[in-house]
């Protein structure tokens, strides 16, 4: 187990390193940098040169990368070029917002999606199944930002309510925080609930045709025992894998939803750092996204072993 985790972490580290190189090269391969943005078109060449030297932009790309990597490995992500704040703090507080959004979405999507999927599987081919399947299809086809916009319109026209414009963190005011993230969470969760319920339905329907279920029923076990002790355990692995996928999807969807609802999360931070060519923030933000995605995948793979002792990790 320990060896396996070490191997996986090493492989992830290599991919993260490659990713940071790709991002670094991509960012620097296009014309225009932060200095151009700061000084504008009619800039003083002397000042521009001085600023580029200050940011280290006058050095060859490989040396810039080596410097950056050296500092990152020492735990220093540098200072934002546009805001002058430590990158670590900016990414950290943005990540907090996104994590809250993702966690709430995951909980809500599971709470809606799993029961719907089970319901559809139990009534396979009958009316409840059809209704759930229609919901799934619509949920998967509707663009997430459109759902968000329509929820805004619906709430304001039927309840004359629209969410506050300024973000308030959870620890300052629980009720205000919840009223701000309610619509973003709901828009993200509808899509993921559809994906979830479809997946759960499919897993159960195909498991119902398996021999072990038939055996358990033939032994005279109650439906409840068959369902909870046999069936759910067997679809556990794909379910956990799926949860990991959903979590990564939510992370991506958050970029769109955060910009729509003006939430100061990681997605918005990435977008603004791209716009202003704030390289240190952009690199750190992307690195964090990649590392999170990798950790999620690792946790998913490890949980296989806990759910199903048959799995040998290789």
């Amino acid at each position, binding site marked *: 187990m320990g060896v396996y985790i070490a191997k996986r972490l090493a492989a992830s580290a*290599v991919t993260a390193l490659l990713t940071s190189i790709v991002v670094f090269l991509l960012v620097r391969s296009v014309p225009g940098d932060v200095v151009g943005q700061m000084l504008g078109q009619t800039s003083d060449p002397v000042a521009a040169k001085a600023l580029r030297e200050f940011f280290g932009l006058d050095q060859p790309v490989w040396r810039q990368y080596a410097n950056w990597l050296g500092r990152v490995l020492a735990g220093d992500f540098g200072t934002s070029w546009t805001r002058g704040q430590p990158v670590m703090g900016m990414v950290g507080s943005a990540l907090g917002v996104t994590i809250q959004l993702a966690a709430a979405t995951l909980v809500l999507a599971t709470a809606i999606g799993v029961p719907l999927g089970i319901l559809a599987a139990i009534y396979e081919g009958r009316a409840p199944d059809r209704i759930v399947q229609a919901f799934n299809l619509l949920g998967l086809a*509707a*663009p997430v930002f459109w759902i968000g916009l329509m929820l805004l319109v619906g709430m304001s026209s039927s309840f004359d309510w629209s969410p506050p414009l300024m973000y308030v963190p959870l620890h300052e005011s629980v009720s205000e925080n919840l009223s701000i993230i309610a619509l973003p969470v709901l828009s993200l969760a509808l899509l993921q609930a559809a994906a979830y319920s479809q997946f759960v339905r499919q897993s159960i329907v195909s498991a119902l045709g398996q021999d072990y279920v038939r055996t358990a029923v033939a032994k005279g076990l109650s439906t409840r025992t068959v369902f909870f002790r046999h069936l759910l355990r067997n679809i556990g692995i794909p379910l956990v894998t799926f949860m990991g996928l959903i979590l990564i999807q939510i992370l991506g969807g958050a*970029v769109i939803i955060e910009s*729509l609802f003006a939430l100061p999360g990681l997605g918005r931070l990435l*977008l603004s750092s791209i716009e202003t060519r704030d390289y240190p923030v952009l690199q750190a933000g992307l690195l964090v996204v990649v590392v999170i995605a990798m950790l999620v995948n690792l946790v998913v793979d490890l949980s296989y072993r806990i759910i199903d002792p048959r799995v040998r990790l290789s």
Partner: protein
Amino acid sequence: MNASSVDPTFRQRVAKHARRLRHEPDLLIGLVLSSFVLLVVLFPGLFAGHSPLAVNVDRAMEAPSATHLFGTDDVGRDVLARVVYGARITLSICASALVLAAVIGGALGLLSGFVGGRIDMLFGRLIDVVLSFPPIIFGVMVTGILGPKTTNLIFALTVVYVPLFFRIARSGAMAEAGMIYVEAARSMGLSQGRILLRHVARNVLPVILVQCMVLFPLVLQIQSALGFLGLGVQPPTPDWGAILQQGKDYILLAPWMSAFPGLAILITALALMLVGRGLQRRMDRR
């Protein structure tokens, strides 16, 4: 396409596939909806009476009416016309990205799976880099850094979907490489390249084509999301995501500006999803 011993003519085969549709209402609905979308793409003039670019400030933000079925936008353009003409732009971008991704990902995957060894390792690592991002974030990164241009948008979407085609083609090629017919072809003295192109690729091709249909709605979602973020097609060109981005600022004043392009995305994605699934199901049954 099928395994019957009598070689049926093309027309008989079409008739047979069409008859089976009666038992697959979802595929049928998908095909009907897709044909409708295709009609809109090919003949936008039939569906829109106004120009998608004609500005008329006097009639800005009018609610849907008989003259403007979907209402007008903030500068008085007909929203119906913008949605109808936008279909061609939005969907051709998605389709080009898909075809490019299928060709590049498919070719690299076939090579990687069939040849194996170092090439497989190298490609695998590169693919991991792309896969380590959530797709939309990768799209935002590429279009954001390279700049909001249609070619950059297509490039970003292509890169995001190459890994998926790569994986499918790779596992297909690996499975085929172990088949007896490959060994037979080799023992007959056929070169590796010839076996790969004429035999293995031909057998993997149907899977890749079905995958194109399955992925199309996903590409559409990401394309429109990037448009919505302002990183896609730039105004005044009508593109579904871009129209939504414009409508966002007037969402409470003129919700029809956003409602209809979103509905267009929803219907198209639904149609493509139903077709993709129907095809996948037929494929799995074989």
